């Protein structure tokens, strides 16, 4: 958790993480356009169970749109999404959430008026079922359910080391902590696939190291598959097992970090080409 953690330790591959398993999600020939603007053109890639998959690319490459397609916020015009073996034309947000896809957002999208505890509890919404009647009475089943989920949430609070801000409204928290609470909220859904949209944007070095450690722990201890968008190349290269590179809505490279790093197309996309 400090600056002394070496790069080697940060890399799951080097630490001997088990190789990724079966295919969890695959997008095939997905295209998405808004009117005349083509956000994503004919992209295919897969995410294997248990891996950390990075999606990178210059600004406006379509990375966030891709995440939005995966969890059903945008509906692609073409292509299919295969989630846990089931082929779909598109995802719906409710479907994605109840099927185990959780995400965090590039601009922190916490529920600002609620406390840290309530924010993370809100991640359990889909797992709580007591109806309106029991909720009104509170004593009895509703309270028991609340306590049961509170225990799970407290585990996450312990894991993320945010005990002290449990009852603080998140609007008052500093940015780095908000990002951490947002990760906690996504973890509370106990997802199979966790989509992280720039989890380290705007953080200082120490916060980035903390966040990297949390991401690795989530991946290795809980076995959660992670799809990650990030601009910090050091982080991406160290954390991820495989990398997809997008540019102008097209896929230009796909493979292990070293391979992608060496790809001429990627270098051209990031550094520009002389014409």
């Amino acid at each position, binding site marked *: 958790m400090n600056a002394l953690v070496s790069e080697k330790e940060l890399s799951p591959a080097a630490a001997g993480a088990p190789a990724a398993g079966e295919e969890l999600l695959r997008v095939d020939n997905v295209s998405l356009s808004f009117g005349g603007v083509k956000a994503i053109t004919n992209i295919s890639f897969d995410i294997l169970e248990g891996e950390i998959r990075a999606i990178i690319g210059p600004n406006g490459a379509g990375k966030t749109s891709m995440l939005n397609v995966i969890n059903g916020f945008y509906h692609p015009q073409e292509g299919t999404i295969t989630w846990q073996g089931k082929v779909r034309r598109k995802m719906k*947000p*409710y479907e994605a959430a109840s099927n185990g896809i959780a995400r965090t957002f590039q601009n922190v999208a916490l529920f600002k*008026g609620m406390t840290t505890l*309530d924010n993370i509890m*809100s991640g359990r*919404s889909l797992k709580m079922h007591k109806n309106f009647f029991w909720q*009104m009475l509170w004593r009895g089943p509703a309270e028991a359910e*609340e306590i049961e989920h509170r225990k799970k949430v407290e585990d996450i609070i312990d894991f993320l080391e945010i005990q002290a801000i449990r009852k603080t409204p998140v609007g008052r928290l500093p940015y780095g902590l908000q990002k951490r609470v947002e990760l906690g909220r996504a973890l509370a859904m106990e997802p199979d696939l966790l989509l992280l949209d720039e989890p380290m944007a705007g953080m200082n070095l120490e916060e980035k190291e903390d966040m990297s450690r949390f991401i690795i722990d989530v991946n290795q201890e809980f076995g959660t598959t992670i799809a990650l968008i990030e601009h910090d190349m050091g982080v991406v290269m160290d954390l991820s097992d495989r990398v997809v590179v997008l540019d102008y809505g097209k896929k230009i490279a796909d493979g292990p970090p070293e391979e992608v790093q060496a790809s001429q197309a990627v270098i051209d996309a990031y550094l520009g080409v002389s014409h």
Partner: protein
Amino acid sequence: MFYREAGQFKTSYQADQALMPIRQDRIGLAAILLIAFVAIPFFANDFFLTSIMIPFLVFSLAAIGLNVLTGFCGQLSLGTGAFMGVGAYAAYKLTTIFPDANVILMVLLSGVFSAGVGAIFGLPSLRIKGLYLAVTTLAAQFFLEWCFIRIGWLYNYNASGAIEIPHREAFGVVVSGAESSPLVRYFIVLTITVGIAMLMANVLRGRIGRSWMMIRDMDIAAELMGIRPLQTKLLAFAVSSYICGVAGAMMVFFWLNAAEPSSYSIQLSFQVLFMVILGGLGSLAGAFMGAAFIWILPVFLKFIPGVLGFDVAAEAVEHVTFMIVGALIIFFLIVEPHGFARLWQIGKQKLRVWPFPY
């Protein structure tokens, strides 16, 4: 000094997520309930009950209803008056169709009708947000008011166009109509208001309350976490309208005795909305404080010249009261835009750390 939580340790999640985790708060609430249920009935005269306490409680309940929708679910509504009207007319129809049924039950049942109407007018909320939604609820206000005037069946073709509350008994006591005693009415209104407020406090701290606040704070994130916006918003509209409907029915049954369509006009909607904003969006205690400010303060202000011995014309007192209340509203909104509930919170926080600044 006295308001400290030092030494109050919580050893279970049950204790930690209680409605009022601090002992002093619980004592305070018990004291307020004791005053409301014992002291006021014992000492208060009829004027105090009928002109201050009953309307205050009715408005408090309406403010709680609107608070569920606007303060907790973030859906701005200007149809409160009409939804209250639906409750009033539904209760009136129910009690004239079933004259022998318990009228208190009919009042509670009337909310079901306003909940249905509220849910229908809540449908646009899936597409429309904020001020634009307020405009569509305005349509509910005008349409329903038109119904109250034009559909004679609703007021039993009464020549005056108003609904007059018939004599009804429940549990062997006269509870509505001109002969009913203010004390009985006060107890009914108090019990219903306190009961609904407590049930809502439970709903609002659980899963359903959280799902409303999720929609309010960040609807996109809520949707991606599996909250279905339409169902959640419609539930908020239905619950809110149910509470407003009961408040509207109590307004005519236990306070006014008779009501015209204009009793449930847009003015009432605004009055309740101001109570909610001034009391504090998203706070049940705020609903009571807002209702007290808007309803009780003017009544007291009107008495001040007489008590001080000034001979002032009644109209002048009326106008001065308007001016003072208006100025106070502006003053409080500048001091604390989040309403009395926030002021109350800040005050409690200051008390906790007193005599230190923080």
